[in-house]
């Protein structure tokens, strides 16, 4: 069987570390809402969510150990999403 699934085994400990970081980031994202950040509130929330989702994609979703094609595809999809969001808001801002 040449097409076996990859047998790269991630140690339990790595997953637990990532989980701990994700929970800390969640608590931080709640904590910062008590600080008056003004215009930066939305930015901070999105930034923390982006960091968390990147951790989930790379470690939980195994992208770190996947082939290059998949890594590029996932990156491309997120760039596409970012562009669509950006262009939509550009449009709404200057209407």
């Amino acid at each position, binding site marked *: *069987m040449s*097409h076996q*699934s990859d047998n790269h085994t991630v140690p339990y400990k790595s*997953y637990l570390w990532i989980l701990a970081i994700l*929970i800390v980031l*969640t608590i931080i994202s*709640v904590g910062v809402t008590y600080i008056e950040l003004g215009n930066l509130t939305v930015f901070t929330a999105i930034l923390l969510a982006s960091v968390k989702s990147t951790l989930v994609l790379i470690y939980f979703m195994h992208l770190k150990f996947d082939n290059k094609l998949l890594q590029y595809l*996932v990156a491309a999809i997120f760039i596409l999403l970012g562009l669509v969001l950006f262009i*939509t808001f550009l449009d709404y801002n200057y209407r």
Partner: protein
Amino acid sequence: MTTLAHIHRDDEASKLGMWLFIFTELLLFAGLFIVYGVYRYLNPVAFHLAAEELSVTVGMVNTIILLISSATIAMATTAVRKKNKQLTLLFLMATLFLAFMFMANKYFEWKGKFSHGIFPGSEDLQRLGHGDTLFFGLYFFMTGLHALHIIVGFVLITIVAVRVNNNTLTFENPVLLDNSGLYWHLVDLIWIFLFPLFYLIT
């Protein structure tokens, strides 16, 4: 035995297929996030006031529940590769339990809103105005669609657990478990963005 050995299997392709499905899901939710963003931009005051109605504590508890469940299913993919059936089942059961807890929290959260007269098309909401109707319409639709994904994930993980239990899913063919894991992480990923957008940004 010889026929079994010749069954065509391409795990790499299965995984790629799962990712393509995940891309369509991401685009679906991204569309909804854009709708949310635009309406928030057009109704800042109403969205600000409406978002304060939601309990940050409930949102945070549910976020942590989903994060832990993501870690448990990820650890199940490790356990199955270490040929530890008992531990694989334990991690899958933990994931199912956490999914149930998430839905239980969601049920009480929605029930609380309903009893306060806040549900799509309610008279109270219409009295509050256009912005609140939009906020709660999006809230119920997006968290509802997300909850639907949780239910699908629950069924999927149950199937995986049954197959692990009767030894038809082992370290030799863990691709269904891997793909269910990917799907479950997607559900987690979407919630990671739903939580700040509805609960934190007020």
